[in-house]
């Protein structure tokens, strides 16, 4: 795997772009590179942020050990780690996320069923059947972007975003699933809700899901949902 481009991101970071479209294989390789980078990061390299199709390295511009040419040094380190992980695969943790797909949580189940020509029960079955993978945690604290959606569930974003999507909602669009850690506005189609806390600053790690995690959505009843809350 080779970067398409490595370029500065502001004056204290770089962005290495590996893919302009969603490619699960490239994303998986990115997780391995990110892990290697984090292991070998010098103290002035503050953040290693894998995203859907690339990787950002953020420097601490005030750090005493910052090299004369941080971009050069970070690029060399990145290329080294790329070589070292050429054949590596990160196993990723296996995480089961319980989801209640009841109609009162799955606000868009019927709409997705209508768009895909399936019925609501089939939509749930397809969403829960495949192994998904966390491609990126970003935008908001602990918010996972999850790949591995069954192609039969391909739907675009909703024409009109909801102004409030409840915390824990699981929604799909753009061949991905997302789990909203907080009540926020969102334009993805909501299929259900997890009783788990997606982000808890008092927990270690604070994020329920980490980049590279393998995720299964396990359908649960309303009673089970209340019990797990």
């Amino acid at each position, binding site marked *: 795997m080779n970067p398409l481009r490595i370029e*500065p991101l*502001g004056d*204290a970071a770089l962005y290495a*772009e590996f893919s302009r479209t969603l490619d699960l294989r490239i994303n998986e390789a990115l997780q391995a590179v990110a892990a290697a980078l984090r292991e070998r990061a010098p103290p002035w390299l503050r953040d290693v942020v894998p995203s859907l199709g690339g990787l950002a390295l953020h420097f601490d511009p005030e750090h005493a050990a910052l090299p004369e040419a941080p971009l050069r040094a970070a690029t060399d380190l990145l290329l080294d780690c790329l070589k070292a992980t050429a054949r590596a695969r990160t196993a990723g943790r296996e995480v089961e996320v319980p989801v209640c797909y009841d109609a009162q949580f799955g606000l868009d189940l019927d709409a997705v069923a209508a768009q895909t020509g399936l019925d609501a029960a089939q939509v749930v079955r397809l969403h829960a059947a495949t192994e998904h993978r966390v491609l990126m*945690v*970003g935008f*908001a604290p602990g918010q996972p972007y999850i790949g591995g959606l069954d192609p039969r569930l391909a739907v675009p974003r909703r024409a009109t975003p909801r102004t409030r999507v409840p915390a824990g909602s699981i929604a799909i669009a753009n061949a991905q699933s997302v789990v909203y850690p907080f009540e926020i506005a969102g334009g993805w189609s909501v299929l259900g809700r997890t009783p788990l806390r997606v982000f808890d*600053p008092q927990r270690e790690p604070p994020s329920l899901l980490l980049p590279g995690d393998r995720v299964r959505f396990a359908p649960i009843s309303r009673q089970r949902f209340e019990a797990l809350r």
Partner: protein
Amino acid sequence: MSVRVLRPGMLTTVQDRGRHRMQHLGIVPGGAMDPVAFELANALVGNLQGEAALEFTLLGPQLAFEAAALIALCGAEFEATLDGQPMPLDRPVLVTSGTRLAAGRARRGSRAYLAVAGGIAVEPVLGSRSTYLPAQFGGWQGRVLRSDDLLPLAPECAALSGARAERLRLPGGAPHRTVPWSAPSLTLPEREFIVIHAMEGRHFGGFDADSQRAFFDATWRVAPASDRMGFRLLGPALARVDGDELLSEPTCLGTVQVPADGAPIALMADHQTTGGYPKIAEIAGADVPRLAQLAPGAALRFVRCTLAEAQALRRAARQRVESARRGIAWKYQS
């Protein structure tokens, strides 16, 4: 030891240097919007570890000190009084127990930092005392201050304040003792519009020629709908040549992204860690604290710079801060 909030002001939060090394979990560093003024406020009261301070925004709070404390207010020029007398800005001031600080409007700039010897003693969350409002954690209960809040100060605040006032040889007699010197203002807007250095962003070439020119030619105004996450800029609408959806990718402090409506947003301290909007520019890190001092309606222009120039600006800005901090440290030692 505490400070009672009599009136909260427009948007007063606890902030420090921010929480780092967690952007892969979607957690942005956050922290003081104007870290330069924040560091100087701390230096003035003898704090050296980035102790938590209060960030005032446009309209300041009214506070009552329930113990003697060495304090300093740095950054925007607030109309501020101590028990009705004008409060000296950019200086260490020793206030007595019962003193009331009333901050009115910001005359110049928009954010100031109230540092207290020993810092604001809220519990750190994920390694920082900064308030992160979008997810409601950190700082004081994850929110802006409200009337009747009782903010904890460091238990050693009074002792530290007394000892540091001694070292500064604050003259006796007056109820609010201060020094005859002050720290420089390094980030306040110097005239009607300010110039902000910016590099071409990753997607600059994807904008049409008119938009590329307009970005660096136009006078932009900070929109009212601007906050700690981002400053929306009012000016000519910017348009892309192609309308391809971009994959969501990492952003950084100072990224200028352009949503579909064509109005650019400069990402500030509490920005989202990733985003899918095209990046037309990246603001030089040295100029972000100056941008943070602009109030809604204030004007700015962007001037193009290279990465090398941005790095040089950063070094120069850092030297100015270091030199001011050395000057203050010298007052503590002499």
